[in-house]
């Protein structure tokens, strides 16, 4: 099964730039479906990025984050070929994780 996480991490001279895209509906709980029923909230709560045993970035998300969330940040101390671990968990307890190679 294809992962819900797509991540691209590129090591630069000083920092490694990480861009990630996660497939998730991010339902806010305020939108109605075609029958006028409210679609219950369904959104990612926590996304974590880890490099070399250390958390380098944590995102805490509410329902106001857009569908299929995009994220970009940079951190120091990684080099090409290192592993970057990405994981998320949503408000229904679903989760996914991925290990990406830094380019």
């Amino acid at each position, binding site marked *: 099964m294809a992962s819900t996480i797509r991540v691209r991490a590129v090591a630069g001279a000083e920092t490694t730039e990480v861009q990630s895209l996660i497939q998730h509906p991010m339902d*806010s709980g305020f939108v*109605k479906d075609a029958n006028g029923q409210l679609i219950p909230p369904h959104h990612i709560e926590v996304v974590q990025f880890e490099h070399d045993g250390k*958390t380098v970035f944590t995102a*805490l998300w509410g329902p*106001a984050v*857009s569908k299929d969330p995009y994220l970009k*940040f*940079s951190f120091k101390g990684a080099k090409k070929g290192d592993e970057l671990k990405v994981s998320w968990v949503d408000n229904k307890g679903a989760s996914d994780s991925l290990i990406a190679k830094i380019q």
Partner: protein
Amino acid sequence: MTFPDVAPCGRRTALKAIAGGVATLSLFEASMLLPAYAADAKDWPADAFKQKSEADALKLLYGKSAEPSDKVDLDAPEIAENGAVVPIAVTSTLPNVTGIALLVLENPYTLAAAYKIPQGTQPAVASRLKMAKTTKVVAVIESDGKLFTASKDVKVTVGGCGG
């Protein structure tokens, strides 16, 4: 020629069932072997995400109030045609940044996202937020234990919180 379709069809169904079984199994294994680095929902500050005012959300998230600063740079569009996907970027020249939060004041709940910035990670993040209507967006930076903000008005043509 007597039963041209049944057998292949049955075989296909069986194959599908096997494939489905394998997928379920690998998912199951993945969750069993989920390593310690997994994101933990316990970290999610549920109360802060339920607040309707900026001050209450910040108090619950950081336990203090914020002051405006020109060292917080919030990049948001002046006009967002689609409120469901508004690109927002925050950077800062402040030292020792440990957190970044984004609030959309006219949304049902003001707090949209909060980011933890450990040492070694740049005080900059870009993501996309939903906005119900034309609103003020506030970026909060936690630096040296204090909170600093920058804000910007975003005109939303089509709201992103549904109707």
